[in-house]
């Protein structure tokens, strides 16, 4: 640890010795000629110097290490005509304002047309994390990086399984797209993390709420878009190497990415990463069996031009995650014992071995896409994608079954989609699309354990129409409609006793196709028709302020877990029961925001209220007895729920080098039917950061981040269960949240230029600096062990 820090310091001092000769810098903004809106994602190339930067969300860019005199800039944006601009560099911090003509039809030159950082909706809340920020989380998961965004928390199973929670909602209510492909990776389970490698992402955008109907009608929580970096049409070979070493877990990760691009629009890109950690550590003990091994790779080939383009893309993800040994328990008494004991009941020596329980998930994703622009009409896109998700879960088993997984599910999905963007009119843009999907889930019977999720075929069809209407330069209205049909055709074996207990023998006896005595084979065919709609307005005022208001109606069909779950879940010591009667849930969400984004300071104030009718939740409903003892039964239930909260953020650029950032999120969730609090509502968060950034001092960046998580004081009542050990009814303290906690993180970064255009960035990130003991309400393993202790992560990025 000391050694790493020393290395860092040594590099740091070398950096200072190699003082630069051209200390001048140029900053500026790129704005639209017509409506003066900032252009995000515009590329600014310093000709002759072969240096390129991209404008941020507010259209700003920054180029340092310039010599006195002038530079010629080539400024381009996917939706504008490129311009050459001469900029004078006369003082240490020159500024320039550049306008671009935003008019597609007159374009003659060939341009790269990809996904720039353009907002996907006008009236919804959006936030993008750029690759430089994502790289700071290279050894973590995508869910960890997303927590930087106000209103985002995570539902964890340990430290490695991180599911993003957006304004209190997660799982099937948060849609994730990997390079334009909607992930189909069994997102229904609480312990199923998104199967995306963070090192794959060039940038990640979160759209809160269901306003972005082009990606799906059921994203009641939000949409996460993970996208690769845009590839420019120029003859170039470039890439990066990213290495990361951590003390907590005693492991590391490495990523290699290479892109070859050609001036005629052809490109080929490959990326691979590997991560290996051993057991993680809490402040006082080893978290036995929490190692991880992960491989990610992606490959793409294509040709982009302004008029048409195509891409073939493949990505692979494999993760093997050990799950805290102490979390595997037998019955309610074991759970009571675990809750009462302050330390986990299994603490062994550190090891890299991934033992049981564990999960191994492999995800293949392949897509082919094509687009063509039609003069005076718009852009037509077509896409086919294929995904296969294979999940093995290993439990502690006895005898010959020891090495056989308890869960072996394979989910295969084919999707075709097409959309047309009519952008001929500057004032009114229309976006239409169609989608068809076929999905098959197959559960391997050789596990010797009754299937948790049955075999099923699922068919989806969706159609949407969206419009953006530019009323005036400062007013934009957007609206959209979407219809989705889905059919689940399942073949499920029910225990005869369960079939009767659920009352299915009265309602669903016609579904039985075979009676095997103790088990019944059934064939439920369930159809759902869902409608979604959105409408909103965006108004720009003053120099740099905005107001947005959006209403979104969204409907979500129940997922297989909500419908079909039936069995014992060991890590939670509970029996989980789905219900065939569950219908689609309907969300009505109103979100408003006031924003200011200036050089000196800015803020976002965004209250929202989300009323969800027939909200599906999983909660304790009673107790069942088996020969192992008593188990609490958790049943999926529908109720009317309301979520209301506010996301607020503020930043201030005190001086050119000092900046402070503040984020606050507050949410309340209420069960309207029972008039009580909802389960698993994220507690209030307050984050404060102080950043020192000096571009003249080898890009030195020092950031201190503080995170205070309040105690969740509103939670459903604990349940009473019979304890065979105590031989009486006892309160199972399963809902009581842990106390509030405060964590401090530190991030240091500097950049060295070893050879021209081969920058080396060195970074050191220390998380939980004070080695604080804490447990998080939204970590499913909080009953069993403390969360992670201090970690030092050293990262090295080499731009090739």
């Amino acid at each position, binding site marked *: 640890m000391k050694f790493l820090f020393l290395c860092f310091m040594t590099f740091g001092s070398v950096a200072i010795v190699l003082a630069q000769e051209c200390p001048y810098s140029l900053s500026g903004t790129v704005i639209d000629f017509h409506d003066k809106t900032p252009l995000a994602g515009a590329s600014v190339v310093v000709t002759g110097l072969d240096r390129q930067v991209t404008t941020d969300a507010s259209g700003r860019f920054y180029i340092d290490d310039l010599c006195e005199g002038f530079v010629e800039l080539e400024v381009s944006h996917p939706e504008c005509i490129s311009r050459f601009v001469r900029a004078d560099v006369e003082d240490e911090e020159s500024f320039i304002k550049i306008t671009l003509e935003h008019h597609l039809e007159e374009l003659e030159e060939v341009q790269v047309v990809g996904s720039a950082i353009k907002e996907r909706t006008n009236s919804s809340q959006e936030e993008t994390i750029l690759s430089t920020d994502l790289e700071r989380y290279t050894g973590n998961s995508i869910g960890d990086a997303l927590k930087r965004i106000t209103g985002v928390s995570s539902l964890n199973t340990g430290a490695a399984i991180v599911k993003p929670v957006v304004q209190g909602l997660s799982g099937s209510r948060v849609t994730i797209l990997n390079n334009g492909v909607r992930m189909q990776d069994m997102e229904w389970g609480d312990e199923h993390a998104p199967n995306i490698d963070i090192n794959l992402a060039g940038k990640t955008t979160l759209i809160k709420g269901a306003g972005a109907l082009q990606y799906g009608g059921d994203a009641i929580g939000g949409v996460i878009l993970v996208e690769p970096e845009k590839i420019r049409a120029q003859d170039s070979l470039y890439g990066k190497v990213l290495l990361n070493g951590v003390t907590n877990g005693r492991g590391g990760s490495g990523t290699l990415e290479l892109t070859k691009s050609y001036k005629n629009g052809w490109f080929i890109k490959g990326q691979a990463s590997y991560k290996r950690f051993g057991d993680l550590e809490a402040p006082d003990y080893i978290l036995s069996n929490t190692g991880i091994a992960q491989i990610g790779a992606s490959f793409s080939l294509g040709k982009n031009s302004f008029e048409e383009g195509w891409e073939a893309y493949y990505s692979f993800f494999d993760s093997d995650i050990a799950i805290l040994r102490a979390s*595997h*328990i*037998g*019955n309610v*008494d*074991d759970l009571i*014992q675990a809750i009462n004991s302050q330390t986990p*009941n*299994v603490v062994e020596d550190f090891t890299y071995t991934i033992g049981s329980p564990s999960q191994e998930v492999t995800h293949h994703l392949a897509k082919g896409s094509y687009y063509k622009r*039609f003069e005076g009409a718009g852009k*037509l896109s*077509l896409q*086919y994608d294929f995904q296969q998700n294979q999940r093995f879960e290993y439990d*502690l*088993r*006895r*005898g010959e*079954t020891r090495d056989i997984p308890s869960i072996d599910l394979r989910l295969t999905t084919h999707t*075709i989609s*097409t959309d*047309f963007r009519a952008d001929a009119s500057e004032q009114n843009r229309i976006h*239409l699309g*169609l989608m*068809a999907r*076929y999905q*098959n889930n197959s*559960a391997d*019977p050789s*596990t*010797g*354990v*009754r*299937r948790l999720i*049955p*075999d099923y*075929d699922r*068919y989806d069809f969706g159609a949407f129409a969206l419009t953006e209407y530019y009323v005036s330069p400062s007013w934009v209205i957007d609206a959209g409609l979407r219809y989705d049909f889905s059919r689940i055709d399942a*073949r499920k*074996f029910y*225990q005869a*006793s*369960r079939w009767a*207990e659920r009352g299915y023998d009265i309602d669903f006896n016609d579904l039985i196709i*075979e009676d*095997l005595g*103790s*088990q019944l*084979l059934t064939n439920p065919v369930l159809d759902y028709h869902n409608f979604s709609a959105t409408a909103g307005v965006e108004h720009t005022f003053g120099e740099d302020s905005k107001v947005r208001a959006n209403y979104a109606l969204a409907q979500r069909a129940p997922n297989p877990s909500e419908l079909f779950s039936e*069995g014992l879940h060991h890590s939670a010591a509970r*029996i989980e029961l789905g219900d065939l009667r569950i219908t689609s849930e309907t969300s009505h969400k109103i979100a408003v925001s006031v924003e200011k984004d200036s050089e000196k300071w800015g803020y976002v104030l965004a209250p929202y209220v989300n009323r969800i009718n027939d909200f599906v939740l999983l909660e304790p409903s009673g107790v*069942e*007895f*088996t*020969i*192992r*003892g008593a*188990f609490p039964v958790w049943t999926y239930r529908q109720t009317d729920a309301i979520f209301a909260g506010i996301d607020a953020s503020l930043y201030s650029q005190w001086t050119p080098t000092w900046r402070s950032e503040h984020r606050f999120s507050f949410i309340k969730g209420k069960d309207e039917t029972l008039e009580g609090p909802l389960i698993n509502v994220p507690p209030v968060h307050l984050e404060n950061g102080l950043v020192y950034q000096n571009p003249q001092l080898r890009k030195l960046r020092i950031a201190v981040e503080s995170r205070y998580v309040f105690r969740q004081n509103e939670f459903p009542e604990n349940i009473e269960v019979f304890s*065979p*050990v105590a*031989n009486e009814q006892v309160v199972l303290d399963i809902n009581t949240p842990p106390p509030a906690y405060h964590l401090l993180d530190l991030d240091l970064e500097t950049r060295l230029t070893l050879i021209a255009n081969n920058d080396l960035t060195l970074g050191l990130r220390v998380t939980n600096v004070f080695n604080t003991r804490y447990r998080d309400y939204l970590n499913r393993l909080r009953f069993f062990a403390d969360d992670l202790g201090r970690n030092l992560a050293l990262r090295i990025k080499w731009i090739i």
Partner: protein
Amino acid sequence: MKLVQLSILSMAIGLLTFSCDNDDDTPQVVNEEEVITTLNVTLTPQTGTPVTLQSQDLDGDGPNAPVVTVSGPLTSDTTYNGVITVLNETVSPAENITEEVEEEAEEHQFFFSVGGGLEATTEYTNFDGDQNPLGTEFRIIAGSPSQGTLTFTLRHEPKKPNDGTLSDAGGETDIAVSFDVTVE
């Protein structure tokens, strides 16, 4: 609107291509392999009638509770040799899980606890390879006439050796059954 037609056509072709599903693909039934349905305890005195205790839960993790039966009272001041049999009766013929438990003796242990005023003591009569208690065979000495509970707990991967209490042993509970027992 040629474009729209084109897209609808391509969608239709796509749908037709992959909607030919394999309909008659009836999945194979899974009978739980390692579920424990039954605990049989036979208590045999040197003279007199044996007493049997049984807990049987034929639907395993299903909604039905185990059926617990005790064949009769224990006789006071008598020593009984106890033998435990653990079965999975969801499969036919029933699988004897005691064999697996005994094969992996180092990873298992039965615990006996006497509660609610019952006058009796227990001791282990079989051990694992490390000479730590296993407990599929044991002895129970019934004391003076009384009434109470006799609880059997099987732990998988407990700490071994342990101090004989469940809280020290840890591990995962495979069986936890209480019998109402009378000593006459």
